[in-house]
């Protein structure tokens, strides 16, 4: 059976924390609480996604893509933002969402296939739960988020606001035309945007060396006059630092930055995928040794920011937090069928109200095709 060969990307990139947790550069200026929060966020994200995976296996969740082993990239990037900024995530950036408090129960209800209106009804956001950073809905069509992010950033620039817009792109998605449009517009209009390339080296079954003949993803942004950085994406400090610099540049009116974060998709693309079919799973070993949580934990333990007891306590808290999110999400009732009509156009057109009535009749066991005059059903 054919397997893809892998080409290991150059590790000639910005790194602060070596895979064994020792410092090879200057750590960012974060206090112990902040350091612990980053750790907590990665652990919580992993626990949450593992739970969602199990719920998928048991049929409660239809599909999930985990960011396991990649948690440092979206987290370090999102943590560089400030309240009021904008973030445009895809589906593999959960640690970033978790950091800013996008409620886990709402996330899980979404994974369970609930309509957004149903989630809003049963798990409404309020002043306490509304995340301080603005998150767009997650994007599934690859690349579509990128030009929207540019538009968001351009809006702030034109209105003389110092808000920053940050978004993500997978290695595979750099091949989309939207990537080209977004980077090009960003360069021309010098918008306050930050693009994080989460290069996990696989797009489902297609390896990065089949996506592009360029040596790195980072250098792609040269083509648009957009400066770039390339960092160890499994090193929370490296990601955080370069993302922070990029965010600051944007906030200071110095335009966009593109940051390639080199990581690895150590797990399945999503729960419908089985990677051993197309790649040599022994490669995982190499990357498991570079796990972002492990190395960070080693560092925090060595520095005395955390103790083993702290970790045990955290794990208990995390279990509880996940369990309560699961309980809350399970409490969300199945979405009502008529939700499918919601939030298309304002007002109710003839067509919409007629089709709503048809659906209602059908659900009532009545024939929906007997309005012969267009005047409605009696």
């Amino acid at each position, binding site marked *: 059976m054919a397997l893809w060969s892998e080409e290991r990307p150059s590790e000639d990139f910005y790194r602060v924390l070596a895979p064994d947790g020792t410092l090879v550069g200057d750590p960012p200026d974060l206090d112990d609480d902040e350091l612990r929060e980053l750790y907590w966020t990665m652990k919580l994200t992993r626990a949450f996604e593992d739970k969602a995976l199990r719920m998928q296996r048991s049929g409660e969740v239809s599909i999930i893509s985990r960011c396991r082993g990649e948690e440092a990239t979206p987290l370090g990037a999102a943590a560089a933002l400030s309240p009021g900024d904008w973030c445009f995530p895809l589906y593999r950036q959960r640690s970033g969402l978790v950091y800013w408090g996008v409620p886990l129960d709402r996330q899980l209800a979404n994974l369970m296939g609930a309509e957004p209106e149903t989630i809003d009804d049963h798990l409404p956001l309020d002043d306490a739960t509304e995340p301080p950073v603005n998150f767009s809905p997650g994007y599934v069509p690859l690349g579509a988020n990128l030009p929207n992010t540019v538009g968001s950033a351009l809006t702030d620039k034109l209105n003389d606001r110092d808000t920053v817009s940050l978004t993500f792109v997978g290695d595979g998605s750099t091949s989309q035309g939207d990537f080209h449009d977004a980077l090009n517009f960003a360069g021309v209009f010098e918008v306050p945007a930050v693009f994080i390339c989460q290069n996990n080296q696989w797009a489902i079954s297609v390896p990065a060396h089949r996506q592009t003949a360029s040596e790195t993803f980072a250098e792609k942004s040269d083509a648009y006059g957009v400066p770039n950085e390339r960092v160890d994406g499994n090193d929370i400090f490296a990601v955080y630092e370069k993302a922070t610099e990029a965010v600051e540049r944007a906030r200071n009116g110095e335009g966009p930055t593109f940051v390639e974060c080199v990581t690895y998709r150590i797990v399945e693309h999503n729960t419908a995928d089985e990677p051993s079919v197309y790649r040599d799973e022994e490669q995982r070993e190499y990357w498991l040794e570079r796990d972002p949580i492990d190395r960070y934990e080693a560092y925090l333990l060595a520095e005395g920011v955390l103790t083993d007891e702290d970790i045990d306590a955290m794990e208990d808290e995390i279990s509880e937090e996940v369990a309560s999110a699961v309980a809350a999400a399970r409490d969300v009732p199945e979405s009502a069928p008529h939700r499918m009509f919601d939030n298309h156009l304002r007002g109710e057109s003839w067509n919409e109200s007629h089709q709503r009535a048809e659906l209602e009749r059908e659900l009532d066991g009545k024939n929906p095709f007997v309005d012969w005059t*267009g005047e409605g059903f009696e």
Partner: protein
Amino acid sequence: MSDAQVTGETTERNLVETINETLAAEMRTDDTVRLLGYDIGPIGGVYRTTEGLIDEFGDERVIDTPLSENGILGTAVGMAMRGERVVPEIQFMGFFYPAFGQFMYTLVKMRERSGGAVDVPLTVRMVCGGGVKSSEYHSESTESYLVHTPGVRVVYPSGPREAKGLLAASIRHDDPVVFMEHKKLYRTHREPVPDEEYTLPLDRARVAREGEDVTVVTWGAMVREAEQAADAVDADVEILDLRTLSPLDIETVLDSVKKTGRCVVFHEARRTLGLGAELTAVVNEYAFDRLLAPVQRATGYDVHFPGNQIEGEYLPDAQRAKYAIEAVMGYEF
């Protein structure tokens, strides 16, 4: 104005002038109105619809972009998500297709997939239509791709007077709108346009002419052809100018056809899955027993828009409308 109720002074205007002045007026009253597109700045649009606007509003309101339709729509959606009332321009409908990704994934879908949390209050101006001896790509009328798509209003004025009220309403509306401008209407026709500002509803057809014998449903540049046909034919023709193609004003269509018992749909687009198909189906479904003849479709043919030597034979005109009217008038069970 709810249709013919605007009073007061009027000025003779063509469509280019009307679009230009309406854009300017909206930009004066609302700072969040920005124009986005290529060739809209110093050149003032290849048809001069944005002439002078960059002088008055500057290049942060009238923004020339790189040459990418998908980039324009994608950026415009991002701006609209942040509350700007962007008015992106697609220079020719035939060049809209590279932007179909952004159109489908964000423009028409953002509000629905966000459960109503995120609005996209933009108005895409799209230049369409044939009959000016341009090249094939510059002459297309492919509104079906838009109308089959939920989540977007499709507005199509038949002349300057309608355009003024519909464009103002589109820009002020919180739903995304595609506003179609038929290039043949740009300069060929002048009519009195009320000076005062007004909006028109974005979901109501206009009864352009009342009649008892047959309903002609049409829009855009075909409305005036329909009027000529009505003048030339031996029947009392009711003409509906749809104005908004999505959502359809089915009520007005059904009311009219139930009254007349006969219907012709008359449009420039190709026939197969042109909007005439939908209108025929709706009439069939809800006015079947009032029909005295099959609905007929006087349309373009199911071909790629032809070269300019023969576009005249492709395009429907008053004569083709007249044939269709005569056919349904002459039909006997």
